[in-house]
């Protein structure tokens, strides 16, 4: 069995699903990360505790359990049929990694030296200006490597969506394997290489981000 002419075209059929789920869930989780991270630092007690609960629940259980739970729970508990497992996959991955990234956002903002925010206050900046022009630009740089790392984790997480019936790369690989049992090692190897190729840009981004993170931050 030829890996390039026979296996790769089959797997390419699932590429779109894997990529769109990765992209959508990554954007969703980044959004959740900033909302969650900033809410954790809010002065409002209720908001802080509620966000804390969300973060601890999603970090304390695993993605596969959350994926299955949402898959069965959303149609029954809310009595709506989202009509698409794609949305459930995106919600599960987004909420899970959003919780992890919230902590990254929170700790990065906290790790900006206190002198910076004091200086901003001394310059008569409003609290919004202080965050927008002084703290945030420094914090974002420190977040980048972790965002890269967690995006790689998200890519790994997308392989689970075939368990709720989505036709991603892993799904097509597994279908091929079930009809060509003797070629299983080669098929899975090509599937793994597919995921690795998708991860490569993220790996390079993370390495680059580590360099960026070290520059221009007062500590």
């Amino acid at each position, binding site marked *: 069995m030829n890996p390039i002419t026979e296996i790769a075209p089959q797997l390419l059929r699932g590429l779109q699903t894997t990529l769109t789920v990765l992209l959508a869930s990554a954007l969703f989780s980044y959004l959740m990360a900033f909302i969650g991270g900033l809410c954790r630092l809010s002065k409002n007690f209720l908001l802080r505790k509620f966000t804390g609960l969300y973060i601890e629940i999603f970090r304390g259980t695993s993605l596969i359990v959350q994926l299955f*739970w949402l898959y069965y729970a959303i149609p029954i508990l809310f009595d709506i049929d989202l009509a698409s497992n794609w949305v459930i996959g995106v919600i599960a991955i987004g909420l899970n990694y959003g919780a992890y990234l919230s902590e990254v956002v929170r700790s990065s903002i906290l790790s900006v030296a206190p002198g910076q925010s004091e200086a901003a206050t001394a310059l008569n900046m409003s609290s919004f200006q202080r965050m927008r022009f002084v703290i945030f630009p420094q914090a974002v740089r420190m977040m980048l490597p972790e965002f890269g790392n967690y995006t790689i984790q998200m890519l*790994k997480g997308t392989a689970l969506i075939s368990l709720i019936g989505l036709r991603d790369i892993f799904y097509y690989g597994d279908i091929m394997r079930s009809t060509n049992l003797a070629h299983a090692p080669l098929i*899975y190897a090509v599937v793994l290489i597919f995921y690795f190729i998708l*991860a490569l840009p993220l790996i390079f981004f993370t390495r680059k981000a580590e360099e960026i993170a070290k520059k221009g931050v007062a500590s």
Partner: protein
Amino acid sequence: MWSWDRFNEAFPHVLQGLTMTVWVTLLTFLFALIFGFVWLFLRRIPLRPLNWTVTWIMEFIRSTPPIIQLFFMYLAWPVLPYIGVTLSPITCAVIGLGIHFSTYIGEIYRSGIESVGKGQWEAATALNFSLIDKWRRIILPQAIPPTIPMLGNYFIILFKEVPIAATISVQGILYMANTFGARNWAYIEALTIVGIILLALSYPSAVLIRKLEVKMNTRFDKNAVIKKIEKGVRPS
């Protein structure tokens, strides 16, 4: 709809899988701790091409989905020529997840050793310590403590990752929940219990490790130690 009757019924059933989940976690972690040394030693061999190859193999294992690696061990390994043997689901989970996590553990070992200051190595050489004494008395006592909280964190991450072994029919909590769900059409109740069990075990452990981390940091922080010596207190 949600039913407390089914919840109560499902609880003992799902709990049956807990021993398996915990055992697989412990065995996998042990495997990863041992295999982590293999990566550590391979990367310390001062040979450029080898170093480069090992780094990329680690990167490959780390950035591809563990579930596919499990499927590889379970379904593809037995049909490999010469080396192929059929492995039990548990062995697959332990080896598959163990190798996956060993790449992280290897990095932790490396960071521990690299955290020992250059002066310590030079001092050990200057004092004419033998190779064994240098490692045993100078390097390792300083390299190991900071890695302990990190290893603890990975233990918790591993515990949460073990449920994916249900897909290759390791009969842990998730597998039990799925069988109960299929039999009684009570997936939500059963899966909620899995979530509760995971949370109940991982959250207190995470809090414990955070405390350990603070303790280790103050105990092995150079400035804190120097302050203690200045005060005339013997560092513990």
